[in-house]
């Protein structure tokens, strides 16, 4: 069985975002970029399915600039077998990403697509659902447990109010939540090996998908700061202030 794992290159989760003063966007110059954390989880799950003998092939895909090669090399070091980079320098919206992925799904014919539930830059949380709708495959988002048996995958989902379990016929699309697994660190030998694994590059324009954005970003601004608070000296002081000053209790 073959698993396709889309991975996005994003600003590292530990780096504080800075908004450009002119409101034109966020400043990414010279900042550390990493694989989207949810995509690491998705990839880890795919690699574990391979190690368990369930999957035979794990293909990582990224849509983005040439630097996304680094993201794909990390994916290869974590255990992906091959990688595909769909090259484009412009930002690509989730719908266009889903359409590009649909073309690759057709070409690669995977049995399962496991992706992140959300890219932590735009926080869209759309692409997996869109891909599922476009290719007409069953979907299970926000997965915290995945079990494959024969032609069926059973997925436990993190939903409001608890956990939901679904059974999907393969092929299917799954999006990973935080507690699906803890991704491994790639060992040095695996980082070295990854350099020799195949990484195919395709120009996005060759896939015949219109990448023109449908949402116009008018402005990006910093959120309003909260007014500075104060330090209380004791529990008694805190209770007093909550009662008389803030009047919330």
């Amino acid at each position, binding site marked *: 069985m073959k698993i396709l794992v889309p991975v996005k290159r994003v600003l590292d989760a530990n780096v504080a975002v800075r908004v450009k003063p002119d409101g034109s966007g966020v400043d990414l110059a010279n900042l550390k970029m990493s694989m989207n954390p949810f995509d690491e989880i998705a990839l880890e799950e795919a690699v574990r399915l391979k190690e368990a003998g369930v999957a035979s092939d794990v293909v990582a895909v990224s849509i983005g600039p040439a630097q996304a090669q680094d993201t794909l090399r990390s994916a290869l070091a974590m255990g992906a077998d091959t990688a595909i980079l769909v090259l484009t320098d412009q930002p690509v919206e989730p*719908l266009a990403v889903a359409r590009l992925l649909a073309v690759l799904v057709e070409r690669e014919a995977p049995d399962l697509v496991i992706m992140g539930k*959300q890219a932590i830059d735009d926080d869209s949380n759309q692409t997996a659902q869109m891909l599922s*709708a476009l290719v007409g495959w069953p979907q299970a988002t926000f997965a915290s447990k995945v079990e494959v048996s024969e032609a069926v995958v059973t997925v436990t989902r*993190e939903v409001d109010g608890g956990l939901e379990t679904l059974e999907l016929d393969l092929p299917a699309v799954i999006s990973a939540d935080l507690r699906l697994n803890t991704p491994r660190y790639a060992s040095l030998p695996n980082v070295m090996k990854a350099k020799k694994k195949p990484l195919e590059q395709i120009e996005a324009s060759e896939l015949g998908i219109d990448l023109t954005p449908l949402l116009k970003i008018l402005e990006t601004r910093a959120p309003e700061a909260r007014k500075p608070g104060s330090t209380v000296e004791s529990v*008694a002081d805190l209770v007093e202030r909550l009662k008389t000053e803030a009047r919330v209790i």
Partner: protein
Amino acid sequence: MSTLVLAEHDNARLNPATLRAISAASALGAPIHILVAGEGCDAVAAEAASISGVEKVLVANGAALAHGLAEPLGELIVSVAEPYRHIAAAATSFGKNVLPRVAALLGVMQVSDISAVVSDTIFERPIYAGGAIQKVEATGEKIVLTVRAPAFEMAATGEATAPIETVAFTPSSPARTRFVGKERAAGKGPDLASARIVVSGGRALGSAENFEALLTPLAETLGAAIGASRAAVDAGYAPNDWQVGQTGKVVQPDLYIAIGISGAIQHLAGMKNARVIVAIDKDPDAAIFGVADYGLVADIFEAVPELTKALS
């Protein structure tokens, strides 16, 4: 053209997040229809008909719709989408699961998690875990929105009686996704997403036993819901759906008490719009103090029992 809002419910009761999505929809200025899809959900339809601002209720009943699965719901919404300019739902795990499918099938982008309606085509939404706010204009013929529910008031219910119309729906193909079951997280107190007071615990609690022993009495005393940081949930101190943050729940209570939570941006994303924030942490440099109205530098194992006692 009108606006269609997808109702969220458990076939018995409407989720209050839907009332907030209705408020956001009201700001668009067009008549609002609400779609109640489920099985045996007539009581929900009646409740929906009583929301002020709702002009019509559409009800679709059927076994395929019983568990809120995304595939039949997406297909249903697309089948009724024609007269609507906007299609919206609350950005809960339910709304996030369904609406992007609708957008994809209609060939438009979804505007996710809107926190403000600027005009009927322009919206604000947080990105980078709330580290920035983006103002976006939707250019498509149809506009699909998920609504950051706590950012909007609840629409009133009770007075109105909108007409209820039945919609026929049969899925075009046999289901390839089957509902197996749902395990409900045991929660006794008020609902986290809509509680007036939230008491949240972090990694500092150290164990599920401590989490329960320290937070439950305080929450009960205050009539508060309990939340948690990701670290606390990952460590098994609290169920997953208590997680507050970028990838958990967004809450906007009158009072949020953070207990042993350092204040990572991903956590702040879910609570920094609370009216009053209290933080208790032993590290005076913890980032949580940067957003707290009242900061108490103390050991939680001493301060929290003392606080509970002082309040009861």
